């Protein structure tokens, strides 16, 4: 009997289990299947900082949320429609996030007295009506897995480890996912251990077949592919896109890429990825500390490579003095900060965007540097390339602010044609640039390291090995032009202003802001930066779907701001700045433009929730339009909640 197939526009699934249960892999495979199927999608991995927290406990729960749809979506979703819980702790840790009516697929195998106690359950929640509001499928996934793989003669422990593939097979059936890529993946991943390989494939197939035959699931679901601009796509995480952007920056500029880095969560994957690509001339140097990482990158840039350092907030704190040296010596340098919860060690595996002011001001003296921030995982590619353009063109360190959410989250990414991408000209100095006039007949041209390009104010980049351009740079203040050490008061004032003007002048190279205000009638503008793009966009859609007007602007350039930002801000009565910090962009915008921007701030280590944010936007719209807050109904319209 073939089962009923019901069509859905979108689904949010959260896979949750113990940190050793392979939930990240499971979620990643489901994501790849959905990407290959052609859905739009967005993901949110969430895992503890401990590599293996005590088994079965609440702190040890690891989860992976995937939102997939037949239309363009922006966030991993606020609340899961489906929770897959592999043990009592996974159920307990995630239950509060589920809306009523959500589906729970739970592996009953670990619901023993001991494991229930580890999850603070005094008795079994599957055996009373506590879960009555949900559609619960209580199944012995582990038991069925062990049964399905017994022919391979694995130990019971090894056999049970394939339970995540059983769960994946079941969910893949439930949502009509293509299976080929996962089977191919398993065959490659476990190629050297045939029994494990075969057991995982068998468990995956058994999960699929169980769905098809059991009466536990009466319907399966279909989510059509999403319409997307034509092109070739792949699913990509932010860290991978960022690494590819850096390699592309190297190829497009003809510069050798040199990464000096010290491992730190959540940035280490960029180091790992770049280390694989030596065939592109990429050198990766795992330094003795954060300071050596950036120091070596500065040395690399001085010698004519493209120096890059990657880290997270604590690493930026350590690198601050070195970043100041790069500001002073005016060398191209990329500083990538994959932000995480702070201060101090903070929440290493959770996301936050609270390093903006550190990026902006976290150095001694007047030490301005350009700051860029990607808005989505795929945008990490373009933003990295933009950072390379600015660094090389303007001879300056550039800070790129990613975050944990972008780093590990993924989305479909249209693979760009290289011809679409900018070419970057290092324009090394090759000859003396100054003639000392009026001295005597032995006048000869000299090289002045601080004689600037009149348009960009960039100084020449003369690399060792270039005859006649021998020069010395350093952290001490230099005389305008000739670059000799100078303590002259007027010169210092001039150089401080010139370094600031150079960074400010980058705004001349930026395109006008894209203002998303469909009817041009909005009184409220929502301004954001970084990974809040998804939740802000989803919240704005909700407000608009309910019939209200709201405008959205998202900044890629945090320093300098685009030239037209002030003018755009003044068009609106009210400005809301949602941030995963206590108001850092808001502080900069209020100070710079004297506008009464208000903040919307959460620092929970998680992305902003679109539904909550929509409420806040709705209230501001109500204020602007002169209506009461309780008259704003965001859920009332038919298309409302199109994208949570």
């Amino acid at each position, binding site marked *: 009997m073939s089962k009923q197939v019901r069509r859905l526009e979108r689904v949010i699934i959260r896979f949750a289990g113990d940190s050793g249960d392979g939930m990240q892999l499971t979620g990643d495979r489901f994501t790849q299947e959905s990407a290959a199927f*052609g859905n739009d999608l967005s993901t949110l991995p969430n895992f503890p900082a401990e590599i293996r927290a005590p088994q079965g406990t609440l702190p040890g729960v690891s989860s992976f949320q995937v939102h997939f749809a037949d239309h363009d979506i922006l966030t991993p979703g606020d609340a899961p429609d489906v929770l897959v819980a592999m043990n009592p702790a996974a159920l307990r840790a995630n239950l509060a996030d589920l809306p009523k009516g959500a589906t729970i697929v739970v592996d009953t195998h670990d619901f023993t007295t001991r494991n229930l106690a580890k999850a603070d359950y005094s008795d079994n929640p599957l055996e009373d009506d506590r879960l009555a509001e949900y559609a619960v499928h209580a199944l012995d996934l582990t038991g069925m897995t062990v049964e399905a793989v017994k022919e391979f003669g694995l130990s019971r422990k090894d056999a049970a480890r394939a339970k995540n593939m059983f769960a994946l097979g079941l969910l893949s059936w439930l949502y009509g996912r293509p299976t080929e890529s996962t089977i191919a993946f398993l065959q490659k991943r476990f190629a050297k251990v045939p029994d494990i390989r075969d057991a995982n494939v068998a468990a995956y197939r058994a999960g699929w077949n169980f769905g098809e035959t059991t009466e536990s699931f009466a319907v399966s679901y279909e989510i059509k592919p999403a319409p997307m601009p034509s092109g070739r796509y792949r699913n990509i995480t932010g860290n991978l896109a960022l690494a590819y952007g850096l390699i592309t920056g190297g190829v497009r500029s003809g510069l050798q890429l040199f990464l000096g880095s010290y491992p730190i969560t959540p940035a280490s994957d960029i180091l790992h990825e770049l280390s694989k*690509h030596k065939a592109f*001339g990429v050198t990766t140097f795992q330094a003795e500390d954060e*300071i050596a990482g950036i120091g070596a990158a*500065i040395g690399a840039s001085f010698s004519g490579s493209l120096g890059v350092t990657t880290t997270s907030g604590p690493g930026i704190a350590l690198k601050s003095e070195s970043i100041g*040296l790069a500001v002073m010596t005016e060398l191209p340098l990329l500083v990538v900060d994959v932000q995480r919860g702070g201060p101090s060690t903070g929440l290493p595996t959770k996301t936050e965007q609270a390093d903006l002011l550190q990026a902006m001001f976290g150095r001694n003296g007047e030490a301005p540097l350009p700051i860029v921030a990607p808005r989505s995982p795929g945008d990490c590619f373009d933003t990295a390339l933009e950072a390379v353009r600015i660094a090389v063109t303007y001879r300056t360190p550039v800070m790129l602010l990613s975050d944990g959410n972008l780093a590990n989250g993924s989305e479909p990414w249209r693979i760009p044609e290289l011809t679409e991408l900018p070419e970057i000209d290092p324009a090394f100095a090759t000859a003396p640039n100054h003639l000392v006039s009026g001295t005597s007949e032995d006048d000869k041209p000299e090289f002045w390291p601080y004689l600037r390009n009149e348009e960009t104010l960039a100084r020449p980049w003369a690399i*060792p*090995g270039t005859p006649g351009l021998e020069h010395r740079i*350093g952290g001490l203040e230099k005389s305008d032009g000739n670059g000799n050490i100078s303590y002259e008061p007027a010169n210092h004032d001039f150089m401080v202003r010139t370094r600031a003007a150079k960074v400010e002048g980058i705004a001349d190279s930026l395109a006008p802001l894209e203002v998303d205000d469909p009817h041009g009638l909005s009184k409220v503008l929502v301004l954001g930066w970084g990974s809040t793009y998804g939740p802000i966009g989803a919240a704005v859609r909700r407000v608009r779907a309910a019939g209200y007007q709201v405008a959205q602007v998202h900044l890629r350039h945090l320093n300098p701001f685009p030239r037209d930002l002030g003018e755009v801000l003044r068009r609106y009565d009210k400005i809301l700045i949602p941030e995963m910090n206590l108001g850092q962009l808001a502080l900069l915008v209020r100070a710079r433009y004297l506008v009464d921007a208000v903040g919307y701030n959460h620092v929970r280590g998680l992305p902003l929730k679109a539904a909550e944010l929509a409420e806040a936007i709705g209230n501001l719209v109500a204020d602007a339009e002169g209506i009461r807050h309780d008259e704003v109904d965001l859920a009332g319209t038919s298309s409302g909640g199109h994208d949570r």
Partner: protein
Amino acid sequence: MSSSDMGLPLVRSGIELVPALEEGAAPQTGKDFTSDQEVRWCPGCGDYAVLKAVQGFLPDLALRRENIVFVSGIGCSSRFPYYLETYGMHSIHGRAPAIATGIATCREDLSVWVVTGDGDALSIGGNHLIHALRRNVNLTILLFNNRIYGLTKGQYSPTSETGKVTKSTPMGSLDHPFNPVSLALGAEATFVARTIDSDRKHLTAVLSAAAEHRGASLVEIYQNCPIFNDGAFDEVKSPTTREEAIIPLVHGEPIRFGAAGARGLIRDTASGGVKVVEVGDAPDQVSPDDLLVHDAYNPDATTAFGISRLTDAGRLHQAPIGIFRQVSRPTYDDQARDQILQATAGVEGSSSERLAALIGGGDTWTVA
């Protein structure tokens, strides 16, 4: 000799990949390496002597001037690069070895020098120094040791003797000092030497060997600070005392010093180290034939470390001078470049074609 047959001439030179002057080019002079900047050290500073020696010695290398880079940190000696007509960077406190590591790794065609001091290299930058040494990056590190903080006006340094009375230690310093040579040997540096600012001949010979060495070379230079620590090295510098104070290290020679070679070194079986003995035929003396013969090429650094311990930690009355260790080990930068060569060997297509394949790889799908 256990290892002299390893044959240093077969070992790659530290500057073999650095472009040399064309044949027939006018020989360089010290003036060619002298920048137009006014030298601003205190009168009588030992740094002048080292600068003159370096300016005088660089022409001997016959390298293209533009292929030489000096990197320094912070401190009196770290002004050094400004006075040399080469490429240079006067960086930040303690970080010069890290910056130089980036330069040396990216550019095999450069002769990279680090100029640092006892505070810069051993205190704030101690971590970078030991890691550059253990990685064996092809750098020549000149560590000017004056056993005091000069630029900050006279606080004790990590090489100052315990009990040093300074502005920050009016009742005497409490720290036990570092011996830079022992530290470098502990970090398994492949070239470790000590010389003295005022002995230009010895200084030049050591610099020459250090530059020729492929890998990290650490040269400790005893350097007098006439303002804040004057006379710290008088015993090893004064013509009347130096014969007794200096233990000269010459590869292949018995280690013997003092008037008429009255003293020498032997292994100390009790401690496992090295000790000073009287040389002669008397019962409590040691025959010249039984003295320790210096072997800088010994792959095992134990004996070199033992010799380094004969340096006074307190007021300096005795110090071994010369090349303690000079061994060959693959360098970090050569190996990093080799990995790139290996990875690029046999790859086909332009970098743009390969880039398109990379970013377009993985599981992809097409939307019409």
